[in-house]
């Protein structure tokens, strides 16, 4: 079937008015030799019940959801309050376009304005855009923005930055004459200060550090920020686990110039990796170089407050090739969900949730490192993830856990060769004590 609302009579009358005898005639403006003379080879149309069954079967082929999982690494399972699903699924939020006509889009625009405010409050920055695709592309956009701001060719990216973020940045800068150098991590799991100093020079456009980093470790942002600024380089902080902002110091408070990252933790399910929510915030003085849409406050002709998309002279539809980014469609609906999530939790809820993550990860780390042969690979303080080192092949450990219905952690061999005997575990507020204990007991048996 198709979602067509015309009757046969409608079609006939419409063709009459146009002055043609058939729909085919309307395609007379196409050369015959490119017209398809056969039917497309697609599955025949499904009715609604058939479609639902088809997708239920596909969904059921994902055995993952029947497992107890400790995967994180840039994609987190957190509690999502019912109001978020209920409100965000309203057609008025789900089915409008980008708010180009502000008079009939005040709901979306005000929500974006609230979102921008919340992101500024959480990151401690002056200005936030309306969203970017995801954390990886937000990091890439941040690198390009730094390069536009000071014109220097070199970016120093922590090796403890999410591997997929680093890959995405490399893809983005490949043809642009921007160079990426990586800064090693030390035994604490965080950026090695010596190595940062070794790489920092007058060509450095920006230093990019993730905190909590890919290993879960909380980085010494203040120190690295001062070092970057001491070399006239910008300091970019990436946050892949936004829930940490509920309790950890805002990157803006240590002097970061750009804060970017992934806010999937705010009301978005794992969803096999998307759609998620890239965010970016910066200092006021860099406003004109910020990529993406921005909502701003103004007044209507009667003097009443209203909101519009603003500062569009930065954007592709006005500036074309001179725009700050090519982004057009962003992740507005995901930002709306994040707004609902944050306003539901409030400062106390966010903090409570974040502290529970720290407490539970700490408990899990204690339980798991008590298992014979298992060690914490790094010494630094963590948020909700940590790296464990195993006395034998990680794959066999993973397989042993799988046999007991447990997935996790994430073997690190394919991301860091030197961590081939390690795996990354994530514990959030949704994991119960019993589940952590089950993991610990399973590990004892697997390693026996």
């Amino acid at each position, binding site marked *: 079937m198709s979602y067509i609302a015309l009757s046969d009579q409608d079609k006939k009358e419409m063709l009459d008015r146009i002055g043609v005898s058939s729909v085919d005639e*309307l395609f007379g403006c196409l050369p015959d030799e490119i017209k398809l003379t056969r039917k497309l080879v697609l599955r025949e149309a499904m009715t609604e019940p058939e*479609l639902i069954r088809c997708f239920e079967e*596909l969904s059921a*082929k994902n055995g993952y959801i029947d497992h107890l999982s400790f995967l994180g690494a840039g994609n987190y399972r957190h509690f999502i309050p019912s109001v978020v699903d209920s409100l965000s699924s309203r057609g008025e939020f789900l089915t409008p376009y980008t708010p180009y006509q*502000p008079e009939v889009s005040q709901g979306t625009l005000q929500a974006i304005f609230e979102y921008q405010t919340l992101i500024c409050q959480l990151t401690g920055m002056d200005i936030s855009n309306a969203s970017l695709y995801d954390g990886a592309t937000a990091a890439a956009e941040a690198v390009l923005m730094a390069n536009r701001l000071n014109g220097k060719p070199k970016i120093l990216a922590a090796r403890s930055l999410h591997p997929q973020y680093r890959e*995405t940045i490399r893809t983005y800068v490949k043809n642009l004459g921007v160079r990426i150098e990586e800064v090693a991590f030390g035994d604490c799991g965080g950026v090695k200060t010596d190595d940062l100093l070794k790489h920092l020079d007058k060509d450095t456009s920006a230093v990019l550090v993730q905190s909590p980093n890919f290993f879960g470790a909380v980085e010494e942002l203040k120190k690295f920020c001062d070092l970057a600024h001491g070399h006239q380089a910008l300091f970019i902080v990436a946050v892949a686990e936004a829930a940490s902002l509920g309790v950890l110091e805002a990157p803006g408070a240590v002097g970061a110039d750009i804060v970017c990252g992934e806010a999937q933790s705010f009301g978005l399910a794992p969803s096999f990796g*998307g759609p998620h929510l890239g965010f970016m915030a910066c200092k006021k003085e860099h406003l004109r170089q910020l990529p993406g849409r921005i909502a701003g406050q103004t007044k209507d002709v009667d003097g009443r407050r209203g909101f519009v998309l603003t500062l569009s002279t930065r954007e592709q539809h006005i500036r074309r*090739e001179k725009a700050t980014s*090519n982004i057009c469609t962003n992740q507005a609906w995901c930002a709306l969900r994040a707004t609902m999530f944050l306003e539901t939790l409030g400062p106390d809820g966010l903090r409570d949730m974040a502290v529970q993550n720290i407490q539970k990860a700490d408990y899990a780390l204690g339980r798991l490192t008590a298992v014979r042969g298992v060690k914490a690979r790094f010494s630094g303080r963590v948020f909700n993830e940590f790296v464990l080192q195993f006395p034998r092949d990680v794959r066999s450990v993973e397989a042993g856990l799988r046999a007991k219905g447990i997935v996790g952690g994430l073997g690190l061999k394919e991301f860091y060769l030197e961590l081939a005997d390690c795996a990354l575990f994530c514990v959030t507020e949704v994991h119960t004590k019993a589940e952590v204990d089950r993991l610990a007991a399973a590990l004892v048996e697997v390693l026996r």
Partner: protein
Amino acid sequence: MNREPLIFEVSAKGKKAYRLPKLDVPAKPDVLEGLPVRAGIPDFPEVSEVELVRHFTRLSQQNYCVDIGFYPLGSCTMKYNPKVNERVAGLPGFVGAHPLAPADLVQGNLEVLKLLEDALCEIAGMEAFTLQPSAGAQGELTGMMLVHASHEAAGRPRKVVLIPDSAHGTNPSSAHLCGYTVQEVKSNENGTVDLEDLAKRMTEDVAALMVTNPNTLGVFEYDIRKIADIVHAKGGFLYMDGANMNALTGICRPGDMGVDVIHINLHKTFSTPHGGGGPGSGPVGVKKVFEPFLPVPRVARRDGAFVLDFDRPKSIGRVRSFYGNFLVIVKALAYILTLGPDGVREMAETAVLNANYIRKSLDKDYYLKYTTPTLHECVFSDKIQKENGISNLDIAKRLIDLGVHPPTMSFPLIVHGALMIEPTETESRRDLDQFIEAMKQIAREAKESPEVLKSAPHDSYVRRLDETAAARNPIVKWEKNR
């Protein structure tokens, strides 16, 4: 009408809308010691659940949307978003799956990716698709990177990308972001690519021509094969912006026209909801020769099971994390499976019928700069109304009073005062007629009572907003003591 306050303005200390379980592990009192802990989050809102629900419900009522009515935003393809697609995209195996889960535990999701890749290959006549790009613009960028990688692999990197003057702004921006210099190709009197100008500019320094087909006027590039020949003869590639694929599905296929690389917007052609500005999804389709360069990972089939293939040395790399906007991909697949091969064709046929009905019904009232036949959209301008001092902006704002969303404004740039109308296939005759009647009324008002148009809208939550002031003195967040 009272404006809904900002949430920050109704916040009060100690109010709660959340309930989290008590910590069930032994609490370590000094667990925060040694961590850089923040003092608080100044002015972060605190509200009760009922206030929150009413806040967003009232905000939602200030939005126009496809579920409310006709949304003829040209080149945005605002069609009905089926409810069943939301239902299936909400299934637990899709929503709950972690993207780094072992492949054997997410076979269903990998199959979804493969099913959509295959369906898009057939619909577009291409040989491989990547679903990774997050939206159309990222698809364009990915496409340009593929072109770049291909030229580079052949040892002949090039510097220039040609783009018609009627193109969407993301085209030049995406080419530029890939390191290319952009050159414009002129449109001829039909609104299509000027072949002479193209032939003149098409040198061995040109990496690709980015063409939108049908173009932003809704006009099909009749000479698309000749265009492809001109580009290919000099060793360049033909990139197609597939934003307007809704006019072509089941009728003809870009791959059969000589297109080498194309992006498609799932949130346009395949009806995934636009969510007030995203998420979208911008899959990129290619001919076989580009396949080695596609982003990693690729879904592959080995021994009857789906796997993710990362071992692709020629790949341009990732363009984002994980595999794309997966739930959007699920919804697009659901749309295609519902329509089937006949429905996919009927979709294009009806979209074109509706657009031509509108065009014919309004061509006495509004000026058509290009009288060339059009497909899924038509671009009028305010030229006739300008005689009475009425601009396309006035026309758009008056439409709001009359209960429909305005068309796309002031684009393409080659039509001054443009009103770009795209009805899509899902609209009823009644909705089309109401829109036509509203446009006719406005044409009459432009002559008889232009002041009604200039002061429009009259019946919206807010009236005409001062966009200049917003840009001159940017207020982009709420602050306590402003």
